[in-house]
């Protein structure tokens, strides 16, 4: 039973890490390799804000906002000039940003590990099903569910989501309706960057905050995004939960095979259903 709770928390954390990546891909068809770096930046920013204000919640809010600004700058300065070139160039530009963001973090925060703690409210552990589950894990499940619900609402119900969905299919037609698509692009990239940083801020109390942290999660995020179907938020949630569960069960019974299992799942998906395990039929995304 507790394995399920843990699996859920792992899955929700994975979803938070990957949501921005899939959102950006869905709209811009850009695979943002710098996603991991933005996630790391988010963790450092959250650490910094917590250090100044003493409030976890302030960090959770401020980090995504600052990272979103960074994302907007990235999009405006670097990506915009290369949209009409081959996708390779966009992908490689984001590759370059890994180096730049990592360096910036190194200059600002140095090499020492930083740490963050769960907020007062979620700092203990709760006895559930005979295990003591850290309450911060429960917070992650709830928060992840809230974020995914928020994203669904935004994408499926709000006018912004409507524009984003339309513009990802046919940006030119959207422009004829008077909508500034390049602004939409900047907005989506910036929002995706903010989501990455949000993931970093949430992950802060669980992991050491260090320079390499972004490097590790980028592959995780790719796995979630690909299995869920590139650009598919609903798929990303399901994929993240699937992988979370797979891992939780894997750690229970065969820890040294966990990475292997996930990759088999990934490669199987790419070969058999490259559009993603959870993409709806007939969807042309």
């Amino acid at each position: 039973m507790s394995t399920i709770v843990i699996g859920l928390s792992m899955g929700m954390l994975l979803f938070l890490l990957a949501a921005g990546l899939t959102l950006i891909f869905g709209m811009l068809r850009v695979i943002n390799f710098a996603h991991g770096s933005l996630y790391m930046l988010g963790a450092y920013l959250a650490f910094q804000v917590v250090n100044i204000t003493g409030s976890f919640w302030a960090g959770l809010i401020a980090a995504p906002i600052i990272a979103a600004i960074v994302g907007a700058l990235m999009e405006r300065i670097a990506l915009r000039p290369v949209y009409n070139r081959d996708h390779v160039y966009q992908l490689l530009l984001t590759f370059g940003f890994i180096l730049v963001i990592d360096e910036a973090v190194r200059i600002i925060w140095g090499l020492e590990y930083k740490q963050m703690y769960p907020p007062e409210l979620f700092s203990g552990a709760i006895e559930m099903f005979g295990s003591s589950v850290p309450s911060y894990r429960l917070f992650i499940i709830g928060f992840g569910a809230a974020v995914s619900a928020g994203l669904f609402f935004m994408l499926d119900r709000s006018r912004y989501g409507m524009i984003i969905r339309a513009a990802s299919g046919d940006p030119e037609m959207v422009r004829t309706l008077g909508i500034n698509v390049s602004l939409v692009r900047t907005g989506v990239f910036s929002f995706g960057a903010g989501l990455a940083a949000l993931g970093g801020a949430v992950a802060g109390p669980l992991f050491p905050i260090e320079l390499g942290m972004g490097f590790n999660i980028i592959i995780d995020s790719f796995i979630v995004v690909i299995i869920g179907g590139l650009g598919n938020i609903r798929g990303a949630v399901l994929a993240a939960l699937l992988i979370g569960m797979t891992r939780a069960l894997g750690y229970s019974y065969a820890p040294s095979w966990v990475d292997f299992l996930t990759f088999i799942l990934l490669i199987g998906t790419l070969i058999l259903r490259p559009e993603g395990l959870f993409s709806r039929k007939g969807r042309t995304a």
Partner: protein
Amino acid sequence: MNILKSSVLTVACAAVLAITGGNYAHSEEADTFKIGAVLPFSGPYGIIGKGMKQGAQLAIDLRGGKVLGKPIEVTWEDSETKPQPAVQKATRLISGGAQMIFGAASSASTAALQGITEQRKVPLLITISADDKLTRANGYRYSFRTSNTLGMEIRMAMEFTKAAGLKKIYGVGADYAVTRDGWEAYKAAAEEAGIEIVGIDYPPLGNRDYSVIIDKIAKTDADGVVLIVTGSDGVTFLKQAGQAGLGKNKTLFGPVLQDEVLAAAVGPDAVGAASGVRYHYSLDNPANKAFVEAYRAKYNEWPDSFAGEAYDGMSWFLDAVDSTGSWDREKWVEAFEGSVRENSVEGRKEMRACDHQAMQVGLWGVVEKGEAPYPDLKMKITNIFQPEALFPACEE
């Protein structure tokens, strides 16, 4: 056709240019004593390079910046925590006349460096890499390690298990060869000592979520958990274990689990975790006191274990060089082999001739809260294990 013609042209040019150059040579006798330091200043171990540089630099400063009567010139190169750049840079340093190579941090890079230093017959000073294979009997003539081996640290963990009276042990090891070997050694010793092994898990190196394993361990009746993980893996485990309250009724310990740097990353949840310690500034001996004072005066911080070990190794090696009064590197090797350093910052050390590994005491400590001027979390040295218990005889 252009392409083929161009290729031929390239070859011709290259051949002509190459033949006109080609020979390189360097003089045995030098105006300066050149040290090539290949340390990680970037990459995952970037933080280690900084401490090592500061420690080694202090060792040089404290001897007036001279050896064999000639000024010492150190070139610091960034190994990026990767073997390829490490070797590339060491090659260049040796070609540039380096009399010795100092580095690297990760065992993989150091192992790669041994290829070139053995080949060029240049001494390699190792002060942090712990893989036992780096100093194997009759292995590398020009490599010397003045710091701990992982094997020694595993034995310390065993000694600690016994000393702390732990009866039931759960093991967690990062999934790679050295830890698996280490765990097997630990397990064999434990069974011999009548300690029960409850379980073992090998999560992958760089794992990010230990919650299932922590939950599994919590449900056992183990009274001790040996963590053969280090760096950010150890930090992640302790953070997540702290949130689940694992440390409340189980002793968490490991051969290289914690030091001040890692404890700072874990935060208060680190308190109580026990670990092997390579060097510690609190050691009570005159050599160490002098070193710590000089270090704090120069850098205004406490020396970490990387700095202490680097300082100790560099001083020892340069003393050995000085003692020969010669520029013959073979003589230095002979002088270093079997040399004894009574007054190292960690007490007595002896360089075994058989494998070029320094025999030394093993330090063991536990994380506790610190107060100014110490960091918030500091290691307290609780046990000092004697070399006899930690180093098997060389002819294994």
